[in-house]
């Protein structure tokens, strides 16, 4: 039975990955949940999706890339290092964290992707976990992409020393200008 199941899953994976707009459920969910437009660039190298002959699409792959693709597709279980030539770092991270089998299962429940990924991974190091960016419809690989309010919080925490010095400089400058003006006014009188 095991000999039949494994090839069947592999064939299922191959079929799923080569379809136009493969895994659109996750993108659709992200868009619906966040209310902002998203595209395939969240997980893939090419924003137009995997099918085609442009860079990062299946038609453009050479033999070496094709081998990498097959190897990535065979990463059925969590923990395997993935370097898929049509996925970006976030796509690879999803497969590496969950394994292809779980990814396939989550297609029917795309809301489950965020909790399954957890909150430890932050590929763009913007302070917002990748799973939150998935829910917010922002790019987990672009530190400038994120909900403005969340970015404000994480950046304030990161740059607070700069801000304290800026406030100090502001206060001193305003005090100096005030005293200068008072002196001028007094001199005029």
């Amino acid at each position: 039975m095991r000999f039949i199941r494994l090839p069947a899953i592999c064939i299922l994976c191959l079929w799923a990955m080569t379809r136009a707009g493969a895994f659109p459920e996750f993108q659709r969910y992200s868009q619906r949940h966040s209310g902002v437009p998203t595209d395939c660039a969240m997980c893939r190298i090419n924003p137009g999706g995997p099918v085609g002959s442009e860079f990062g699409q299946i038609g453009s792959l050479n033999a070496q890339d094709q081998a990498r693709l097959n190897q990535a597709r065979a990463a059925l279980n969590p923990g395997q290092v993935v370097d898929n030539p049509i996925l970006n770092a976030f796509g690879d991270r999803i497969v590496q964290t969950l394994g292809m089998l779980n990814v396939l299962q989550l297609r029917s429940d795309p809301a489950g992707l965020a909790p399954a990924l957890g909150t430890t991974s932050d590929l763009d190091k913007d302070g917002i976990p990748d799973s939150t960016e998935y829910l917010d419809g922002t790019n987990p690989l672009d530190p400038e992409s994120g909900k403005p309010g969340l970015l404000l919080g994480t950046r304030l925490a990161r740059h607070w020393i700069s801000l304290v010095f800026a406030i100090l400089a502001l206060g001193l400058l305003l005090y100096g200008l005030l005293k200068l003006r008072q002196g001028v006014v007094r001199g005029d009188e």
Partner: protein
Amino acid sequence: MPSPTAWERIGRFFRERFPVEKLSYDELVRKKTVPIHRRSWGYYTGGLVLLFLLIQVVTGIFLLFYYEPTATDASSSIEYLTHYVPNGEFLRNIHAWSASFMIGFLLLHFLTTLAMKSFERPRELTWLAGVLLLFLTFTFGFTGYLLPWNQIAVNATKVVLQSLVQASTFLPGGLARLPLDVRLALQGGESVGQPTLSRFFAIHVVLLPVLLAIILGFHLLSVQLLGMSQGVDTPAKRYERFFPSYILKDLSVWTVAFFVLFFLALSIPFASFLPYPLTEPFYALGPTPAGIKPEWYFYFVYYPLELLPFPVILAGMTVIMIGLFLIPWMFRKSSRRALTALAVAGALYLLIITIFGHDIYQLVRGGS
């Protein structure tokens, strides 16, 4: 006594409005005063526009060190600047935020000077220069928007240039060619591409700055020569010296404004207000992504364009644009109270359409 000739009248008109005899240290520095009254805060709005313009110039020069004005490299050069150049992202954010602040304060300056009736004789030419500066600044915004060559930049530019084709269908006779010629001159070809980018870049970094320097120079000099306008109906009871008292206050305002800009540029990337598919490099073969819009400071014309028939907006905008130049003569006899009401109505329209434009559009059209 013989009546003055046309040339004499013209000469008198310009001498009164541009009194070059006041071009002295005594008049411009020692004797110049600024009225103090309840609307004095309006005097600081022009200075703030100047501050943000100076920031634009300085940060723009630094951006030029890295920016590649080619359709193939523009987007990647900005990505390189943002992610690999030390403080590049901060620099870019300062440029983007200060552009928005500059336009915001320019609109505020326009409305306050309208409410204060600062266009009164002999300040008509100062007003005309100000209106030209307003249009130049919007053109700066429009041309600068294309330069990152990303999805929103190229597609929004296409929409604006396409509207010129639409405009030509409503114009009579030979006038119908004008928008098409303007479009071709800006676009440089049949569609938006490398020639368009080259032209927008040249306009943004050479042509507009030169024009701006000339007109702004005239505007500032005429403000200095004629002094601050009265601003209120009853002449102010108190005055302060322009130098150094007012200048020091102005510097304090600049300091606070610069801190706010620094804080925002450090804390919130300007690009984070856009959905990420719109900031991806422009992909000519792909579909147009959803959510293409101009910058927020064009919403006052963008949403009405989406909701009302094109000829209505075309006629309305033409009347308003011509009307802006004629304000000093149209409202010569209007009271400051009436002008204030007009300015407040204008401010409310700009605020409502900018903040709630999308919601109003959805409400009317019933879609997203």
